[in-house]
């Protein structure tokens, strides 16, 4: 039952990814100009030989549907094409960059959910209290601040005024030969500012959402029952109430994942974080379309995976859903 649900969910996810591949294909065709030139990246450097090579690889002399078939087959074999800027397969380029992005996005997601939900839960206890007001104000501000600007402000603050966190890159050059533990700590040290910058926006949203959701739940009969039987306030809040208030939070967490990746793109450029977003940005400036479209495909795939995980965690959080398929 659950297994077949997972299978179907994965099948649907694959279908969505196929959609992204078709979209990528269409984008190259719809762009003004010769597709071979577009793929080679209008930097002028493309020789006739290179263009012929591209035409052969992508089957550009064949009918459009055959071209699409070739494109899909290539991608199914993890061949995302060749970056003509780096002279390297796109899949390899992305493989080098995907780790840092996942690290950044997941850390930011966990930070924002943990801190946001915690703030929301305590705010919900006293809807008119100081903390509650603070959460509302913070959520409004967090929604309105451009994420790249927060990043820049933090860079200014931590580079000149309070130099306790590195503001650039992922690793210190001087620690190149250090042991694995030192290196890990170094990466985490570099991660603090980018992850926090990214987390701030969503943190505010989770705080507001969980506050509203908790206030709903705290009025229910089973909470009164839990209190009546003498459960401690901590247990009432975090065990009885939060589990029931978690569903809307999970929904939003799943939907936010795509936005989180978009945000990561901006944060990576601000902090020079060597991830996919930075790669996409550099490649767009170089008009290196195979790389850009490869990143788009991978980023969309990450969202698909995140959505599947959200669905599964839904079932974990709400036993009522488990029986259904």
């Amino acid at each position: 039952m659950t297994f077949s649900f997972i299978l179907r969910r994965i099948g649907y996810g694959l279908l969505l990814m196929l959609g992204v591949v078709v979209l990528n294909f269409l984008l190259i065709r719809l762009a003004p100009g010769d597709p071979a030139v577009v793929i080679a990246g209008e930097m002028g450097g493309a020789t006739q030989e290179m263009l012929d090579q591209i035409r052969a690889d992508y089957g550009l002399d064949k009918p459009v549907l055959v071209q699409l078939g070739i494109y899909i087959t290539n991608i199914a074999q993890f061949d995302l094409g060749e970056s003509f800027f780096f002279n390297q397969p796109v899949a390899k380029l992305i493989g080098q960059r995907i780790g840092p992005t996942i690290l950044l996005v997941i850390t930011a997601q966990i930070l924002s959910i943990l801190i946001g939900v915690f703030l929301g839960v305590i705010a919900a206890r006293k809807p008119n209290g100081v903390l509650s007001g603070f959460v509302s104000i913070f959520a409004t501000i967090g929604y309105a601040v451009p994420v790249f600007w927060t990043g820049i402000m933090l860079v200014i603050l931590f580079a000149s005024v309070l130099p306790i966190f590195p503001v650039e890159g992922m690793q210190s050059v001087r620690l190149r030969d250090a042991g694995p533990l030192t290196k890990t700590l170094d990466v985490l040290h570099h991660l603090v500012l980018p992850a926090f910058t990214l987390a701030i926006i969503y943190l505010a949203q989770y705080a507001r959402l969980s506050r509203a959701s908790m206030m709903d739940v705290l009025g229910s009969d089973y909470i009164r029952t839990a209190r009546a039987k003498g459960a401690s306030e901590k247990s009432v809040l975090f065990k009885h109430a939060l589990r029931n208030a978690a569903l809307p939070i999970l929904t939003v967490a799943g939907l936010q994942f795509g936005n989180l990746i978009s945000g990561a793109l901006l944060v990576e450029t601000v902090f020079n974080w060597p991830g996919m977003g930075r790669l996409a940005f550099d490649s767009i400036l170089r008009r290196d379309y195979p790389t850009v479209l490869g990143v788009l495909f991978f980023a969309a795939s990450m969202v698909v995976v995140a959505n599947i995980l959200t669905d599964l965690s839904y079932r974990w959080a709400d036993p009522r859903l488990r029986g259904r398929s």
Partner: protein
Amino acid sequence: MKDPTIRAAIGGEPPAKPQFYVAQSPGREAWRMFVRNRTAVFGLVLLVIILALTLYGSLIYGGDAFDIVWAPHERPLATPEFPMGTDYLGRDIVAGMLKGGGPTMAVGAAAALITMVIGITLGALSGYYGGWVDNLLMRFTEFFQVLPALLFAMVLVTLFSPSLWTIAFAIGVVSWPQTARLTRAEFLKIKELEYVTAARAIGAKNKRIIWKVILPNAAPPLIVSATLTIGVAILFEAGLSFLGLGDPNVMSWGLMIGANRDYILDAWWPVTFPGLAIFLTVLAVSLIGDGLNDAFNPKLRER
């Protein structure tokens, strides 16, 4: 009777006057609620000020935002003519601030319009017809929700020259799914109500029921969502311009931040002021959105 001692002397509160309820149009009622909400009015006033400054400010202030007028990186207030200082090329930041808001807000509004048109149309069809139409359109919507919006917009803008229209279109194309879902949910709810059945009973066609009967009744949440969409679109435009993917010939707040970002450790002001402007604009829009949300909510109306 205001004096508490007199009130106490005559024995407590004077009897309340009988209340009469005057029927008001829902729009006027919502407006009455809106103007009572202090933060919402603050947002409205803020937005009006920002709009006035960006629309007419540069006419009064004069000068081209791209002109190099002074030494680079002049500190704010160091020279009276340049209260916000100059940027890395020696361009006047005040001129940029006044010029740079127009395109940002124009793109924001246009993108929100495109978002609403696509979102409401697809959401309405999906919610009203249900069945395979709903299935198809919702799969289509889910597909667009999988694409990381900013990245997709970046690709669109670079593949098709970065004019203000392309940017507005790209933002619209990536932001409509949420509107579509909201519209669909409203339609699913409203289409079961009696007045819709009544409209059908007197022979109204589907087209009329969708646009003339259901849509106006679904308007309040959609208006709130449109307001918030403007805020999101402004942030989007700022992000794209910051990355240097906006129209390079048009001064905008995001562009100012992007152009000066390599020098932030030498000069904080060229990036700080435009960022504050974006923040205040989006803040104003979202406060208005929150205010509208409360104003349309009958539960919050006092009896």
